[in-house]
């Protein structure tokens, strides 16, 4: 080797400046809205999970008292049980506590559902992509059809059909199951696409041409890349489930009173729409903020993980 070539070897061997994770975070940070969304999401999660532990009120119990005397109090008023920052609902329960408690239910449900649907979807998508053939064809037909169905009426009927007492956790677990039955379709498509491109002949040939020992490197690149769209989809789905659960609870096919949920609080609020319109505002606002922040985060995540749009799967 000539002197020159040796010199170049040194220059080329200079170490990379930042890891992939750091690059992703740097790109993510550029999206101001997503950072705001992240802050809001963290605050909400914190408030809803820790909050109810801090307030002196219980969200459900109505103290043994003459029920006819119970009425709703406006915000910043003091009732028989203490000072209510957001007032009370029509049964005298502290509104803020119920709001936070409801958030706990909505958020916990959303996280659990998202994790489970992603798992189910990954398994189905993986099987479909790996085995191909008629297994793939049939599964994908099913997925296509389920994907196009309007979800709300299906959720409602499934909810009605599963008996609440047959399942531990009652209406909330039923709700989770309902969401999972339709929710897995999205990620199964994504994962199937990933598996197919992994199985791709050209890729396997290239791996062999570069040297089989590189297969590990390729897998170490492919897997993080495969996780990316799933992660984005999962983030966006959280917002969707929160809204979906709220919708079902609002209609009466979700979390049942006396358990609070942002959705069923809206249902109760609709009856009070003339006198206490603010009670319509709060639970809806929290749903909206949750959905919005997760949307911002998911969108920014998509941009940060894949700035050149190479990995977006088709419809």
């Amino acid at each position, binding site marked *: 080797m000539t002197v020159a070539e040796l010199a170049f070897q040194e220059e080329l061997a200079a170490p990379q400046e930042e890891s992939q994770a750091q690059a992703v975070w740097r790109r993510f940070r550029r999206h101001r809205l997503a950072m705001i969304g992240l802050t809001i999401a963290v605050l909400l999660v914190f408030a809803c999970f820790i909050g109810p532990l801090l307030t002196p009120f219980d969200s459900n119990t109505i103290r043994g008292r003459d029920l006819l005397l119970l009425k709703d109090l406006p915000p910043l008023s003091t009732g028989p049980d203490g000072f209510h920052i957001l007032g009370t609902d029509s049964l005298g329960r502290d509104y803020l506590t119920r709001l936070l408690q409801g958030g706990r239910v909505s958020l916990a449900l959303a996280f659990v559902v998202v994790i489970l649907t992603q798992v189910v979807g990954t398994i189905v998508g993986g099987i479909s992509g790996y085995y191909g053939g008629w297994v793939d064809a049939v599964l994908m037909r099913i997925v296509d059809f389920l994907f*196009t169905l309007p979800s709300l009426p299906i959720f409602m009927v499934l909810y009605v059909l599963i008996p609440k007492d047959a399942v531990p956790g009652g209406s909330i677990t039923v709700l989770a199951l309902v969401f999972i039955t339709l929710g897995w379709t999205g990620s199964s498509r994504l994962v199937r696409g990933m598996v197919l491109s992994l199985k791709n002949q050209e890729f396997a040939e290239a791996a062999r041409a570069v040297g089989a020992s590189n297969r590990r490197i390729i897998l170490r690149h492919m897997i993080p890349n495969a996780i990316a769209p799933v992660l984005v989809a999962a983030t966006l789905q959280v917002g969707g489930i929160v*809204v979906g659960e709220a919708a079902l609870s*609002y209609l009466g096919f979700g979390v049942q009173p006396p358990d609070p949920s942002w959705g069923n609080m*809206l249902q109760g609020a609709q009856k009070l729409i003339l006198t206490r319109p603010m009670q319509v505002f709060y639970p809806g606002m929290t749903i909206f903020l949750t959905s919005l922040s997760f949307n911002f985060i998911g969108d920014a995540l998509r941009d940060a993980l894949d700035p050149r749009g190479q990995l977006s799967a088709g419809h």
Partner: protein
Amino acid sequence: MTAYLIRRMLQMVIVLIISSITIYMLLNLAPGGPFDQLRTMSDRKSRVSEEQIDKMEALLGLNKPIQMRYIAWLLGDDWMGSINPEWEGDTRGVLRGDFGDSFRQKRPVMDMIRDRIPKTVALTAISALLAMIVAIPVGIYSAVRQYSRADYVLTFFTFMGVAIPSFWFGLMSIIIFAQLFQSWGLPALPSGGWESLRTPREGTLLGVLGAEPGSFLDVGVHLILPIVVLSLLQMAGWTRYMRTSMLEVLQQDYVRTARAKGLAERFVVAKHALRNALIPLVTIVTYELPFIFGGTILIEQVFGIPGMGLLYIDALSGFDFPVTQAYLLITAVLTVIATLLSDVLYTVVDPRIRLH
């Protein structure tokens, strides 16, 4: 093309058969039938005896094995006397236009649907149309003026529109445009319903317009809020989609060629880019129609509009199976048609796709 259509039709039929079986079995095999409650009480203080329950069941055609009940649902049981006299009934079956009788209202489901479907269809169709009319130009504008302040503002609004819960948006709009307007002395919109039940109050928009209860104008004003809410929500998603599609198209080589030919920018956009950008939008809009139809459930509940959505909610709460089945079957049919229409439209607008 015809071969493709025939193949798709066959697939549709298979899908519909499987769906109808699923719907029927799901509802009728699961616990929670209309007489479960009575049965459990019949041995207690109820005044209804087992025999009376059996008779009621026979009247409703529930005394057949499940497969026959399914067939009866689709094809009727007025011909089943020849197989088993006990099975003879008086329904003609879905395929002959008879959805059976509602358990709760004791009248043909078809009648109930006939009342309600036009209302839901009106809501769905008008809001979809309105949404498209606005989404297309706004999406184009946003894409062409990328990075401008207008683009950022519009994009922000579309984000909001996609994230906002429809029912909350509806409720808030009632608060603002029906209630607050009233207290502010502005012509208020009606807070719900399909039409006025009595003469409108002074000071409300209806009062100002002097609309007769039940008139076209009356209904129209009642529908302003629900339609605007529905279409705004739909518009958000479609605007985003149009913008993305347009942005992608504007990056394409052939747009560069059009400019290199000396074509003025507005023609580059309107002639070369738009035609291509609309292709995916057309298919998405068609694809989403069943969703809008399902979404009206929430809007009807918020605004109290007696359409298919409210019918479904009532039916589910009351375990009224014939109505529930009918609604779900209609939904499945709509979905299947929408998918087919979407695929066919795609081949019509994109000369690259020709199906075999």
